[in-house]
């Protein structure tokens, strides 16, 4: 036997590889989480029942299946803690994405209009923060935002405020952290779309009587929408599930779903409810993904 039959169809194999990856590292783990979300919590190791034991035969497995229930999901709906966490997550993600877009678009636009030789340097500057650990950068922000931190010192020195402002443990601090951390994810897809745009289109618009502002709104902006969509989605989805930034920078008042999940899982040791919250979060994120997919397909078909 030689390896020939396997290598004879490399193309087919290559096509299967991503699916295999998805099944192994996404679908199977998701199956576990889904199963746990339908289980009941127990003081045991692992902390839930029922357990499937394949050695006990068909009847036992069938019985175990019978014990699965949607109770945890009912709890999610009935308990305002979860609902409010979800709502807060969505609210924080929408607000942050909007701020990111407002800050990221002009930066990306400016980068795309730089002379060719400066563009790679600008790109490097956007990426450079990634060379430092994410956690360290958030701790750096704690330092900057604390009572006698850099921000307050600057504000006091410039006489913008007379007494130090409380930044830490506020939503402002959280938004600063989120916007700072996710900005490259917004800038890069926007830059990619704007940089490849044909300059002749803007010239054509101005030739046809559009002022520079109108040319931007009527041509540049609509044509950059795929980039806006990609950037927004790339930020929105992870921000919904964000745990570290709100935990370190925001106050303890209201929690995002990521924090609630953490609490259920590690503090309350309630794996089933935590799993149910995770599954619900995933379901929550499917609609915007589908919407984006549809929009993208439409622009592709319509000629984007």
């Amino acid at each position, binding site marked *: 036997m030689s390896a020939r039959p396997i290598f004879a169809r490399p193309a087919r194999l290559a096509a299967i590889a991503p699916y295999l990856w998805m099944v192994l590292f996404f679908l199977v783990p998701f199956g576990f989480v889904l199963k746990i979300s339908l289980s009941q919590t127990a003081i045991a190791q692992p902390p839930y029942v029922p357990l499937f034991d394949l050695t006990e035969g068909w009847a036992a497995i069938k019985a175990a299946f019978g014990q699965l229930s949607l109770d945890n999901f009912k709890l999610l709906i009935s308990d305002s803690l979860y609902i409010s966490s979800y709502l807060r997550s969505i609210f924080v993600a929408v607000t942050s994405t909007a701020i990111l877009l407002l800050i990221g678009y002009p930066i990306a636009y400016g980068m795309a209009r730089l002379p060719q030789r400066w563009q790679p340097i600008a790109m490097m500057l956007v990426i450079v923060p990634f060379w430092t650990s994410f956690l360290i950068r958030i701790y750096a922000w704690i330092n900057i935002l604390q009572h006698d931190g850099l921000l307050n010192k600057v504000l006091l020195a410039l006489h913008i405020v007379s007494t130090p402002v409380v930044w830490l443990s506020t939503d402002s601090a959280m938004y600063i952290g989120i916007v700072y951390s996710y900005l490259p994810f917004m800038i890069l897809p926007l830059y990619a779309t704007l940089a490849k745009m044909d300059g002749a289109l803007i010239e*054509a618009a101005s030739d046809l*009587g559009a002022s520079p502002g109108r040319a931007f709104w*009527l041509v540049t902006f609509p044509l950059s929408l795929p980039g806006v969509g990609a950037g927004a989605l790339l930020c929105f989805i992870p921000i919904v599930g964000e745990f570290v930034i709100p935990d370190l920078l925001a106050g303890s008042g209201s929690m995002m779903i990521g924090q609630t999940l953490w609490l259920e899982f590690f503090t309350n040791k309630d794996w089933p409810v935590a799993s149910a919250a995770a599954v619900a979060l995933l379901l929550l994120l499917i609609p915007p993904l589908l919407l984006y997919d549809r929009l993208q397909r439409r622009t592709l078909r319509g000629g984007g």
Partner: protein
Amino acid sequence: MTEELPEITPKADAVRDPAKPEPPPQVAVSPAPQFEPAADMPLLRIEGVGKTFGSFRAVDRLSLDIRAGEFFALLGPSGCGKTTLLRMLAGFETPDEGRILLGAKDIAQVPPHLRPVNMMFQNYALFPHLSVRDNIAFGLKRAGMAREQIATRVAEMVALVKLEGMEKRKPDQLSGGQKQRVALARSLARRPQVLLLDEPLAALDKKLRESTQLELMDLQRRLGMTFIIVTHDQEEAMTMAGRIGVMDAGRLEQVAAPRELYETPRSRWIAEFIGDVNLFDGEVGWRENNRLLVTTREGVTLAVTEPRQRVTKATVCVAIRPEKVKLSRRAPVSDAANTHAINRLEGVVTDVSYLGGLTAYKVKLESGAVVRASMANTARLDMDAYLAGQRVVAWFTPDDCMVLEQ
């Protein structure tokens, strides 16, 4: 198809000088009258315009007048500055010096969106997110035209370029030729005082290009509009334009009608750039009536007709177009009264290229110089074809020779 298009407000009222004489009629009635503007009143006057990019002199103090209703071509090799000049007319580049007068108003510093001039872009630059209709309507909306008027104008434009039924398509769903038509309709929709065309046919295949050339000419004549086209294709320029400005290194080498450009080039460079030519460098020997005798470097004496503008230099270049060089087996008998009635050069055919409509020959003279001749294949069965290796006489009249001093 109607051509009675409503008058549109020019995109910039600011550009319009109230003192300016009545603008040329922009709406032509079919068949369009041959519009003859006053010779002293060009529509567009370019005065000493210069543009430098870094250390590269793209346009060098260039002056040019363009008459209303004219089809003018800017022709030249790539990098000669023709596109830069066109972009300065459109407003995408600002001249470093000089004036661009449209009517009586200097528009050199006016931004593109305020100029009553439109451009058709080389790669069309159609807005990919807008339909054919919205592409054409784009300029009309910016001009603040009423909705119903826009609809009428768009419909007329669509009919003009024969794109009926395509209004809702996006540029991606159109063929190259259709895109070209949309771009044309879009740039014509505002009824600009001058339409600038930047290599408008470069992206089309040969057959389509030829038919589109004729359509563009027809359109320009019927609309009575002023077209300025930039091209590197001399055949295209000669086919379409009434006058051609040949550019090299940022300067206009010659501005002339196609025939004049070909038959009376002003310089050796023009003679070589436009069409094929045989060149003989030599010294003017003596004058005889209106004849000059030129002794070439190869030692051949050529009789040439002295041009209207008398030759002042001793060193000249004699140029003769290949189709004006005739070949025969024996030397033709010359007019006894004038020994220099015909130039005869003996040689051997070294190369024969059959090109369909004509056959191109290369004849090597005894001096070593090579003369190119081309003869039209006027008969299907040609008994007169010459073969490589054959001894022939290449002959041409003094009238067919051009004398170039530079």
